[in-house]
């Protein structure tokens, strides 16, 4: 059996067709048409894992950042913990979660949540700290309580920094999902991993390019959301 036996599609016994799959070309239209469903399933899994992880991270990050902003004592440990989490390589992170989650999609989501959480907490905290003291004083002078101050003044003003963090977290998560292939839940990473073992060039290149396309699309989407949510920053640029 040749090492590229993976890509072959013909039934046993028939003469091998001379198409790009049999030649194992990098770019192959045949691959796109014959493996459309595999690609679609992988893209869907990729999007689900990424979106779920970033969403959970966002829900956890906002209160953490607010707590770290309000109680200065908490900010040191929170920042130290996020630095440590971010330093641990992704493959090691997934492996450390193996006893808790087993070979499951939850393991990949949990690992991605920890990375995204780090990026989001740091950025939201930086955004909250950058709110001018004068603005806070003015709001207090107008009779704003702490909750109203947070929700209607501080969080909206922290939004540009938070969105910048969200975009970085999203793009990083799209790229990191591929490492989930080690436990079989890596979205397009699964195709890259399988393609590596069978020297299937078209599959590896197609899946890799799709990863980058998803990352760029997600980034542009969030950029659009940011422009809608923060019209005042747009006005100042114009």
């Amino acid at each position, binding site marked *: 059996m040749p090492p590229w036996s993976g890509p072959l599609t013909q039934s046993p016994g028939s003469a091998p067709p001379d198409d790009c799959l049999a030649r194992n070309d990098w770019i192959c239209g045949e691959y796109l048409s014959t493996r459309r469903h595999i690609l679609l399933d992988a893209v869907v899994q990729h999007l689900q894992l990424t979106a779920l992880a970033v969403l959970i991270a966002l829900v956890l990050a906002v209160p953490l950042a607010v707590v770290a902003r309000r109680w200065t004592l908490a900010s040191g440990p929170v920042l130290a913990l996020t*630095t*440590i989490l971010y*330093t*641990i*390589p*992704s*493959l*090691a*992170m997934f*492996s*450390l979660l*193996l*006893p808790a989650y087993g070979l499951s999609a939850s393991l990949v989501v949990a690992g991605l949540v920890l990375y995204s959480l780090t990026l989001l907490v740091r950025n939201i905290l930086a955004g909250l700290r950058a709110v001018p003291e004068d603005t806070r004083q003015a709001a207090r002078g107008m009779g704003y309580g702490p909750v109203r101050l947070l929700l209607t003044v501080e969080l909206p003003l922290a939004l540009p920094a938070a969105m910048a963090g969200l975009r*970085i977290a999203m*793009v*990083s998560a*799209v*790229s*990191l999902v*591929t*490492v989930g*292939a*080690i*436990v079989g839940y890596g979205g397009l*990473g699964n195709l*890259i*991993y399988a*393609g*590596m073992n069978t*020297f299937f*060039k078209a599959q*590896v*290149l197609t*899946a*890799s390019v799709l*990863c*980058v396309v998803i*990352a*760029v699309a997600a*980034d542009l989407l969030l950029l659009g959301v940011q422009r809608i949510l923060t019209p005042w920053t747009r006005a100042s640029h114009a």
Partner: protein
Amino acid sequence: MKTLTDAWDWLADASHWSGDDGIWHRLAQHLVLTVVCLVISCLIALPVALVLGHLGKGGALAVNISNVGRAVPTFAVLVLLLLTPLGKFGEGPTVVALVLFAVPPLLTNAYVGMRGVDRDIVQAARGMGMTGQQMLFQVEVPLALPMIMNGVRIAAVQLVATATIAALAGGGGLGRIITAGFNLASTPQVVAGAVLVAVFALLVEGAFELEDC
């Protein structure tokens, strides 16, 4: 808890430390890969960043290259390189992939550091009759050094992480203990390997933190 004690037992077993698949050998591979690729990356990225920063040109490229680097999965690049003719040269794909992912943070941070040098100071240096070269090495680089070193730290941590993923594509290093553990379905070995990688990465990060003090 049982998994942790099992992982500890795995680490305590002397036979797991020796030989070609042993921890010492994998640790040495990881260290050599990280250091060699960091040196190569610095030799490529820093001269470019310093000259661009000195001239004040190519800013968009130097800043955006980091964003591009983040969007490209390291695992994908490792496998793509493995399937090119480069894949025949042992650690060739790993070294190229590691350098590719270490260059962007070095380039961006060094460039931003160079541009962040107070323009008044640069003007004063020029007024004192310094040549371009003297300004670069006696004024701009020393003042940009904290940002340059920040880039080196980020690149080093990135290298340790990428070298770990390289094990998935057949590269050497501590990641091989993890992938071998997965192949053997041995959770203790996977966890033990992960602890070794995490400690190694934290030590690298810690070494740079100490240097800052």
